[in-house]
């Protein structure tokens, strides 16, 4: 077409355009993407509610919208799974951008349930003392007011609350749901940003200790941006290697996986400019680094303790549980779908990462004096145990990691929910010395926390044990016996500090000026109860969930 014709076509109507010049419209399977669309749509409705509803009614409206949206998304996931999209009808949707398969649906379901429980803890308004006649939650009265300034006083006196946390939560959930399902590197990157940005904001919104919370958010943001840059650079290099960002494809329209295993049917021109192994190795390593950052594996773990400590505790619980689920999902898909041909290159490295993560997470935790930091290091150690399952490169490796993620995340949510209950005049009393003698003052809360700690420690008949057994078993069957032995030793070290907390709670004298245990509303109570139930059910009768994870453990290519 000549230049004049182009200009002409701009001025004439669409009907005049020859059919050959039509840009083909992408084919998008809305039904199969409905869980994500529902969550993001609900988040948008939440923003509108925030804009148009009067301040008084926003809290209940937001809570209702969030719960309904998440429940609808979960129902959609179940419907998809029931239709066989997890197994026989698993395929790649949205022009190769998003996979609809077992692991994706399983992890999306897990994330939605985590978000539902987290929404309960977000909505808790009985714990903080009533401020000027208004019940308040864990979030800042006005995020933009300078801490300690007159504006802040005014906001607190007026009883403001940041109900925007609910839409932010939903946006983060939407991103997290795409993350493990992403089937090309750009979708991966976009979804990473979609869930990271709301999390940075949520971290900064604590009602108490606001400076610490803002510092945590800045640290998280800076290090997160750094890791995003790594990821993006890695994506660019992988594109340079393969000439595509798609994970998989066909012989004629190859994905990265086809280029790696040599089954791609490349034109000579393309074949000349692709296939540079240096680009593949460096690019792959950088993408994995970006994901390991989100997972919190050593040596990319430095942000974890500070952020977990500074963020509002409900956000910490959500972040610790859901981010890990999403990031491990993405890591599994990348390693199992794109890079299985490279496993002789990445497995030794991941061995090393798993070992240092388990060992450093467990050893450094021993010296912690703050319960939130302690749980942060414990989450690092758990990331190490999970990596042991990732390394197996077998179906049982995938299903064991999926199972472990479920077991770990609900226990974590429950654990952080208990942390919100123990309070003194300054808000939550997170220093461990304050927890001394808690077992005397409120045996039930201490006993529940002890159950969570025992599960973290992997004592039999708890979910933590079943999960640990599953991943170690998968690793041992894949021949990683030394890894299992180191994992077991790390568990023993880790058990030491969990036990130490139990000792403090039950066998130490309570301090005279110790904290009080707030009576929560049914919201937090149910979050904790769900944690306990999951701990016991997955500990005593895990078979149903192992079956589920086993059935969901096959990636679509």
């Amino acid at each position, binding site marked *: 077409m000549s230049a004049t014709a182009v200009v002409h076509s701009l001025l004439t109507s669409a009907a005049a355009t020859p059919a050959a010049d039509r840009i083909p419209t992408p084919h998008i399977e809305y039904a199969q993407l409905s869980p994500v669309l529902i969550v993001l749509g609900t988040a948008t409705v939440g923003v509108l509610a925030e804009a148009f509803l009067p301040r008084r009614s926003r809290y209940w409206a937001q809570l209702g919208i969030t719960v309904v949206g998440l429940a609808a998304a979960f129902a959609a996931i179940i419907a998809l799974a029931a239709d066989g999209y997890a197994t026989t009808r698993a395929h790649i949707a949205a022009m190769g951008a998003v996979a609809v398969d077992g692991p994706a649906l399983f992890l999306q379901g897990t994330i939605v349930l985590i978000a539902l429980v987290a929404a309960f803890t977000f909505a808790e308004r009985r714990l903080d003392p009533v401020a000027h006649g208004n019940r308040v939650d864990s979030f800042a009265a006005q995020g933009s007011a300078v801490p300690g300034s007159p504006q802040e006083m005014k906001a607190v006196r007026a009883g403001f609350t940041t109900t925007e946390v609910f839409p932010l939560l939903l946006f983060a959930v939407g991103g997290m749901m795409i993350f493990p399902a992403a089937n090309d590197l750009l979708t991966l990157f976009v979804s990473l940003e979609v869930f990271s940005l709301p999390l940075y904001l949520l971290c900064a919104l604590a009602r108490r200790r606001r400076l610490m919370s803002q510092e945590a958010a800045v640290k998280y943001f800076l290090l997160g941006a750094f890791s995003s840059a790594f990821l993006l650079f890695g994506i660019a290099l992988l594109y340079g290697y393969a000439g595509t960002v798609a994970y998989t494809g066909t012989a004629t329209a190859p994905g990265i996986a086809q280029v790696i295993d040599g089954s791609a049917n490349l034109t000579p021109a393309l074949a000349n400019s692709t296939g540079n192994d240096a680009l593949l190795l460096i690019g792959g390593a950088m993408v994995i680094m970006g994901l390991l950052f989100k997972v919190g594996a050593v040596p990319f773990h430095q942000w974890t303790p500070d952020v977990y400590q500074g963020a509002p505790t409900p956000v910490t619980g959500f972040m610790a549980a859901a981010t890990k689920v999403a990031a491990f999902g993405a890591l599994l898909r990348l390693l199992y779908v794109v890079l299985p041909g490279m496993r002789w290159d990445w497995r030794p490295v991941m061995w090393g990462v798993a070992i240092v993560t388990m060992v450093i997470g467990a050893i450094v935790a021993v010296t912690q004096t703050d319960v939130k930091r302690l749980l942060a290091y414990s989450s690092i150690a758990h990331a190490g145990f999970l990596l042991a399952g990732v390394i197996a490169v077998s179906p*049982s490796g995938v*299903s064991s990691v999926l199972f472990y993620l479920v077991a770990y995340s609900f226990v974590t949510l429950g654990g952080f929910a208990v942390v919100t209950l123990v309070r003194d005049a300054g808000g939550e009393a997170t220093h461990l010395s304050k927890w001394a003698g808690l*077992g*005397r003052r409120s*045996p039930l809360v201490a006993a529940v926390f002890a159950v969570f700690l*025992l599960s973290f420690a*992997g*004592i*039999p*008949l708890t979910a933590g*044990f*079943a999960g640990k*057994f*599953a991943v*170690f*078993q998968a690793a*041992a*069957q894949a021949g990683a*016996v030394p890894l*299992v*032995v180191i994992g*077991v*030793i790390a*568990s*023993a070290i880790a*058990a*030491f500090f969990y*036990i*130490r907390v139990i*000792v403090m709670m*039950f*066998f*130490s*004298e309570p301090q005279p000026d110790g904290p009080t245990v707030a009576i929560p509303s049914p919201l937090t109570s149910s979050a904790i109860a769900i944690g306990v139930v999951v701990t016991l059910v997955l500990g005593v*009768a*895990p*078979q149903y969930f*192992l*079956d589920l994870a*086993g059935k969901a453990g096959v990636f679509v290519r």
Partner: protein
Amino acid sequence: MSGFTFPLLTVTAAVPAIGAIATAAVPAARRTAAKWLALAFSVATLALAAVVTGRFSPGGARYQLTESHAWIRDFGVRYELGVDGIAVVLILLTAVLVPFVMLAGWHDADPLEGPVPNRRWRPTNGFFALILAVEAMVVISFEATDVFLFYIFFEAMLVPMYFLIGGFGDRAGATGDDAEEQDARQRTYAAVKFLLYNLVGGLIMLAAVIGLYAVTARQLGTGTFSLPEILRARADGRLHFSTSSERWIFLGFFFAFAVKAPLWPLHTWLPNAMTEATAPVAVLITAVVDKVGTFAMLRYCLQLFPEASKWATPVIAVLAVIGILYGALLAVGQRDIKRLIAYASISHFGFIILGIFAMTSQAQSGATLYMVNHGISTAALLLVAGFLITRRGSRRIADFGGVQKVAPVLAGTFLIGGLATLSLPGLAPFVSEFLVLVGTFTRYPVLGILATVGIVLAALYVLVLYQRTMTGPVKAGIEGMKDLKVRELLVVAPLIALLLFLGVYPKPLTDVINPAVKDTLSDVHRTDPAPQINAVAKETAK
């Protein structure tokens, strides 16, 4: 077999478990109700254990009253129960001892009177619920024939034990103004030490359990933990352990059991735990929970890994003998009554382990019998010692003297318990100790002779203890000491009666034990070596 069979073993383990929950649910203020409820459940368990014993026919199948259900298919785990003769007697021992432990500890969890009442938090219902929980877990670990099922309860047992040790000590260790605080600190230390030692042992066993799964999964197609199935597969030749993997997995298992048993040099948690715990809890540790360790050596180490067991026997036997002598020597030097008994127990566990790994029928029968007899004799001695300590408010031997003048019955029962501990002929432990020694002589004469020295030392520490505490002039603080009350007599008298009965007539027990021991030995492909000594041993056993 068709139709519904009554799950007797499950019920036997479930009754104390339900009892634990029920007792824990009793309101904290109703202390007496909680006690009676717990006692009732423990007696019911005893009745069930008696039924199990009655239904067990010694000449019958190897594992009887079996139950088998799928549990966690992905891990190859089945809910499989079954008892052999060894398990039956140990279940019976547990069920017999727990009611006495409860009776003896009737007031151990009452609120303390003193200058600062209610300072220490002692929920009565918690104490009794924890005892029942331990009983349930011990019983099911004796019943399990699935390695994984066993492992779960072997580990989970630590949690209630830990709270029993750390939460309910007696107030008798330290003196001075901050005595209570010092006691609390020591008790916490002991509880944590107990937990960490056993947890590390358990986690190393976990690695071995996973290794076992990996081997069975590779060779049988599907991994399994079922003991009978593994034994069958190996007999068919479908399953074969390579020498190195068998040895590593064996070591993983053995390490956990050796910590629990405890075998020198992994024993150091026991004196702390037994000293700081109240006497009834100490009985629970040494007479009940530790037996799981020695029992598991017999059932799992020998049956699953016969070659590795034979390979390790010389080292283990030497360690056991060191334990016998070391425990006895340290017992001689103790100044604390409970510590002394703890070291004596370490010495006795040396005998049990020596008997197991001597791999002769007399030695293993003796070792199994020893588990029972040691349980009863230590319980008798420790519980009486507990009564003594509560009366005086001190554990130090130097604080006692001339007790037999003011409390003759107490002194008398203490003497009988002590004599049982030093294996006086006519009392139950003698038979078992003799069998172990005879069985060991036939294979390891030198070790047998060395172990005999342990008996001499036992006489020394028991008699010196008695002499220092019971005889001589009445010391200050002893004058007004009351003799045993009815409740305390109810605890001690049956135990002493049992000691006397089994001392002269051990046949009911040996009849049940012997077939199981024979099966175990045939698994290890060991036969008794020296016929001329065999004859002597048979004489004694009859």
